[in-house]
C-alpha cells in the first residue's frame, strides 16, 4: 500500500527523519507513535506530499509520489488543526471540497452521524473547536478512499462523538481500508489499532502488534510498554 525507503528530512539544522524505511500492507489500522519531535507528522506529511523529503522514495499504491498529485485521490486526510475560512458556511465548505475532489453522497450520512445538521448554515468562524473537528471528520470520511490518514482525530471530541468515531474507524477497516492514525491518547490507540509503528529519532524503532510490543519490552500493559521504550532510550 505505502512503501517508504531511506527517507531523510532535515529542517534547518535538525535532522528529523534519518533513513526511515517503512512498508504498510493493505488493510488494517496502523498507529504511528513516538515522542514529540520524533517525526510522526513529518512522516505523514511526506506521504501526503506536503513535506518534500531530502532523500528517499515514497510510493503509494505502487506509484512514486514525486511530482504527482493524482495519487491523493486515494487518500483521505484529517489534519491536526482544523482552521477553515471563517466566512464560509459549513454547507458551502462541504460542497466546495466535493467540488474539488469528486461528488459523493456519503456526507449526508456522516452529518447525520455527528449531528451536524443544525450547524450547516452557520459560518465556520462561529463554530466551537469540537464542532469544527466534527466537520473535519465529515470532510475526511466522505470520499471513501482506500487509504485514510488521521492526525490526532480525537482532539476536542465529546465522549459520544468519540464512540461514534471509533465505530466509524472500525467500519472503515471492515471495508478493507488502510488507516494510519497518530494520537497521544494511548487507550484510544490500544483500542483501535492492529499494529503499532514506533518512531524514534527519525527511524522506525518498532513495528508490530501491541502484544509483540508487550513481549519485547516485557511490560504487562501497553502504556508501560511505551514508557519503558522512552526511559530506556533516554537513560
Amino acid at each position, binding site marked *: 500500500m505505502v512503501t517508504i525507503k531511506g527517507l531523510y*528530512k532535515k*529542517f534547518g539544522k535538525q535532522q528529523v527523519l534519518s533513513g526511515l524505511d517503512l512498508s504498510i500492507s493493505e488493510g488494517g489500522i496502523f498507529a504511528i507513535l513516538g515522542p514529540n519531535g520524533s517525526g510522526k507528522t513529518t512522516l505523514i*506529511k511526506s506521504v*501526503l*506530499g*506536503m*513535506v*518534500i523529503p531530502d532523500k528517499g522514495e515514497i510510493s503509494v499504491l505502487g506509484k512514486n509520489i514525486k511530482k504527482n*498529485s*493524482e*495519487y*491523493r*485521490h486515494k*487518500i483521505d*486526510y484529517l*489534519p491536526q*488543526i*482544523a*482552521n*477553515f*475560512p471563517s*466566512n*464560509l458556511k459549513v454547507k458551502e465548505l462541504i460542497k*466546495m*471540497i466535493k*467540488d*474539488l*475532489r469528486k461528488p459523493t453522497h456519503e456526507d449526508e450520512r456522516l452529518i447525520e452521524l455527528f449531528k451536524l445538521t443544525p450547524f450547516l448554515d452557520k459560518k465556520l468562524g462561529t463554530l466551537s473547536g469540537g464542532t469544527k473537528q466534527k466537520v473535519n471528520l465529515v*470532510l475526511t470520511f466522505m470520499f471513501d478512499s482506500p487509504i485514510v490518514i488521521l492526525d490526532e482525530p480525537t482532539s476536542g471530541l465529546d465522549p459520544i462523538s468519540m464512540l461514534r468515531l471509533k465505530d466509524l474507524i472500525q467500519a472503515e477497516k471492515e471495508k478493507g481500508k488502510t488507516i494510519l492514525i497518530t494520537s497521544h491518547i494511548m487507550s484510544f490507540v490500544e483500542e483501535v489499532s492492529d499494529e503499532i509503528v514506533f518512531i524514534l529519532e527519525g527511524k522506525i524503532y518498532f513495528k508490530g502488534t501491541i502484544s509483540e510490543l508487550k513481549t519485547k519490552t516485557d511490560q504487562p500493559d501497553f502504556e508501560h510498554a511505551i514508557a519503558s521504550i522512552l526511559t530506556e532510550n533516554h537513560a
Partner: protein
Amino acid sequence: MLKILKYSFYDLMRSRWSYVYFAFYLLLGIVLLFLNNDLSKAVITLMNVIIILVPLIGTIFGVMYYYNNKEFTELLLAQPLKRSSIFLGQYLGVAISLSMSLILGLGLPFVFYGLFESSAIWDFSLLLITGTFLTLIFTALAFNIALSNENKIKGFGYAILLWLFLGVIYDGIFLMVLIGFEDYPLDKVSLIGTMLNPIDLSRTLILLKLDISALLGYTGAIFKQFFGTNYGLIVSFIALSLWVILPVLRMTITSKKKDF
C-alpha cells in the same frame, strides 16, 4: 486553479475587510468629488492615494490572508490538487477582490459624478489600471514574503519594510545617486531606476498624463523619446507586467519546494 480562485474570491468578498476597503475608497471618491467639486484636483489626490495606499494595503492584506489561511491551505494541500494551482488560485482571489474593491469603490462615485462625459476619463482609467497593477504586484510580493517566512511577525515586518523601502527610501537613494552623479549623463540611469521600482513606475505612468508639460522641459534625447511618444507608455506597461509575472513565478517555484 479556477475552483480555488472562485472559493477564495467568494470567501474574501464576504469578509469584513473587503467591505472596509471598498467603503474607504467609496468615501474617498465621494469626498474628493462632491465636497471638492474639482475633477483635476481629485485626480491628483487620487494619484497620491493610489501610489502609496494601494501597495500598502496589497502587501498587508496579502500577508494577512496567507497566514490566516495557513491551516486551510494545508487541508487543500492534502487534496489531489497541484500546489501551483492552490497558491495561484489564492493569490488571484486576493488580488482580484482587492482590485474590485478599488475599481468599484472609486469608480462608482466617479460614474455618478458624470465621468463618462468628462475629459478626465482617460486620466481616471489610467489611475485605475495602475492601481490594479499595483495590487497584483504587491499581493504577489506579499505572498512571496509570507511563503518564505514561517514567522508571522517577521513576515509582517518584512512586508511593511518592503512597502516603506519601495514607497519612500528607494526614492531617497535614487535622488542621492542622481545628485551625486549630476556631472554625468543620467537620463538612461533615471529611467532604469524607475523601472526597478513598481511604485516609481506607476508614478511615471501617471506623470505621463498629469505632468507631461513639465517632463518635456528636460532636454535629454532619451527622455524625450520616452515621454514624448507612446514609447514610454508601452515600456512602462511591459515593465509593470514583468513586475507581476516575476513574483508570481517565484511564488509558484517556492511553493513547490516548500514544506508545510
